[in-house]
């Protein structure tokens, strides 16, 4: 099958959807003339014109609030927050306005709104341009939280998100933009709330998200040489969270490792661990391990950043640990 990059797959999803539905527009900082700082909106301005591809001032509250008002008034905005780290200047419009509007209004509002954003370390972009903050959005009733790890998922999930009638935070990972994978031409959707078993296995369940998925898969591959069978699950959405798929897997493997790039303390990994510790406790043969970034702002220097981001070695150790092997690190 044809291969596309993750960025290319996202771009294609946007193009196809905009062709299909004239109420969809794209707005954000540098999404037009520049084509998006990471190139995701490249070519959209040329194809759809400035009415539907809108460069905005550097005012994130106004961007998200504008999208909220426009959605309430009948459009389907897909707006970009250049770095997830910038949510701090604009969170109110998302979590108090867009997310709660339907509920506060007794159901009488529909907010089909996608906030695309991008997260993660790996570019030495330092503490204010490298964070993973998905757990903040999980904690907000009214939002859905989507985070693809492959080009295939990126395209299908973005199409589904655009068609969904709820405010959605769609989180891309900057280190995945250049990764390639098979992507069908034309439109297809992936249900929001359905985890994907990226690799089936029987001995240990590893739940991973975003840039940790390829790492978990590499570890699984490596361990398979020793006869250890690792199941790798990507939840793909954190709200809704497909806990059934995770619980089923744990009931089979009896062991769970959760791998996320975010800081662990009150992260999404904690929620997944808590669910399993409540609902599949009787099936667990070992304590649940989490592999996450340490409790630190993201450091700039590559010499530190490489130790901040969870490594394959740490994942490997955690898997061995839940299997009862002594750790190396």
């Amino acid at each position, binding site marked *: 099958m044809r291969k596309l990059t993750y960025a290319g797959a996202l771009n294609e999803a946007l193009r196809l959807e905009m062709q299909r539905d004239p109420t969809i527009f794209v707005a954000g900082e540098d999404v037009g003339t520049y084509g998006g700082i990471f190139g995701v909106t490249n070519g959209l301005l040329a194809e759809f014109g400035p009415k539907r591809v809108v460069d905005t001032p550097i005012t994130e509250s*106004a961007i998200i609030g504008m999208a*909220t008002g426009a959605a309430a008034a009948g459009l389907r905005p897909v707006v970009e927050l250049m770095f997830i780290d910038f949510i701090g200047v604009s969170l109110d419009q998302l979590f108090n*306005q867009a997310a709660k509007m339907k509920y506060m209004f007794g159901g009488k509002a529909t907010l089909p709104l996608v906030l695309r954003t991008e997260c993660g370390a790996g570019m030495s972009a330092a503490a204010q341009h490298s964070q993973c903050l998905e757990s903040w959005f999980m904690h907000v009733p009214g939002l859905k939280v989507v985070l693809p790890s492959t080009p295939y998922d990126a395209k299908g999930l973005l199409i589904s998100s655009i068609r969904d009638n709820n405010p959605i935070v769609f989180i891309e990972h900057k280190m995945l933009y250049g990764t390639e994978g098979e992507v069908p031409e034309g439109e297809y959707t992936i249900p929001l709330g359905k985890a994907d078993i990226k690799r089936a296995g029987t001995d240990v369940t590893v739940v991973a998200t975003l840039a940790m998925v390829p790492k978990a898969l590499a570890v699984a591959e490596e361990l398979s040489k020793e006869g250890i069978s690792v199941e790798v699950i990507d939840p793909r959405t954190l709200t809704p969270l497909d806990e059934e798929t995770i619980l089923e897997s744990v009931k089979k493997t009896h062991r769970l490792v959760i791998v996320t790039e975010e800081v662990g303390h009150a992260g999404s990994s904690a929620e997944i661990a808590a669910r399993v510790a409540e609902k599949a406790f009787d099936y667990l043969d070992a304590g649940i391990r989490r592999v996450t970034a340490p409790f630190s702002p993201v450091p700039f220097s590559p010499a530190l950043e490489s130790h901040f981001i969870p490594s394959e070695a740490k994942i490997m150790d955690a898997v061995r640990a839940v299997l009862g092997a002594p750790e190396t690190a």
Partner: protein
Amino acid sequence: MSEIPKETLLSIYETMVKIRVFESRVSELFAQGKLPGFIHLYIGEEAVATGVCAHLNPGDYITSTHRGHGHLIAKGGDLKLMMAELYGKRTGYCKGKGGSMHIADVDLGILGANGIVGGGPPIATGAGFALKYQGKDNVAVCFFGDGASNQGTTHEGMNMAAIWKLPVVFVCENNFYGISLSQERHQSISDIADRAAAYDMPGVVVDGNDVTAVYEAAAEAIKRARAGHGPSLIECKTYRYRGHFEGDPTVYRSKEELEAWMKKDPIPRFETNLKKMGLLDDARIMAIHKEMEDRVDEAIRFAEESPWPDPSELLEDIYTGPAVVV
């Protein structure tokens, strides 16, 4: 004023009275412990919402504030549904989920009261964006306070509306206080309308207790917006008679100040003018007040007789489509 149609003048008068009566009764009901939560009353400021909304039709949008009852009534909100919402009943506008600070009627173009100071300007800008995108000649009106004029979101919303020439009218209700902080302590200018220059949009100061002045300034701004010439800022100087919320001891202002403003009450002022014009007499005034009292009575009855929301409704209306259970 002479150019305003008589029916409009009368309807403006009725709306102001309607707001006043509704709010006065709400104040009493709150004191009786019948209404839960925070209640921010608009009494004294009726001319602003009324003068502006007199120009609007259901295809036009408004965003309101924590002090929203007046805006909602002026935009055509249903008293029964409002009152039931204030009581927290399932028959209310928001099925009891929103309360005073979140009453909305999207079908009437009311994008909600708002519990966040400065929450509205970006949303109104978005509604204006949609109207322009859809090629409609409707407008979005954003009500906000003097306190809210300092909030960053207000600045951002105005800037965005200005560059894209969106059909938005920003109406600042300068009642000289943000809770306890007086205007001279929260900003170093006296006319908030002067801030329009920061966005190259027209900015005018109006006596917010003179409903015809408000009406005329709004006419101009709304015409401009409908014609595609972009946003405007109207500052209406007015005053709230009640505390910031019901229960506020108002230690931060003097009785004299309040009394001076009460002498400029927008309703008797307008009444006098309408009488002079021969449009109103004492009998008609009494009748209008009586009618509004009756309608509010009816709304209270409706609210009191309405059922409470059922606990099973707690988890409804969070998402459109299938529920997201977590």
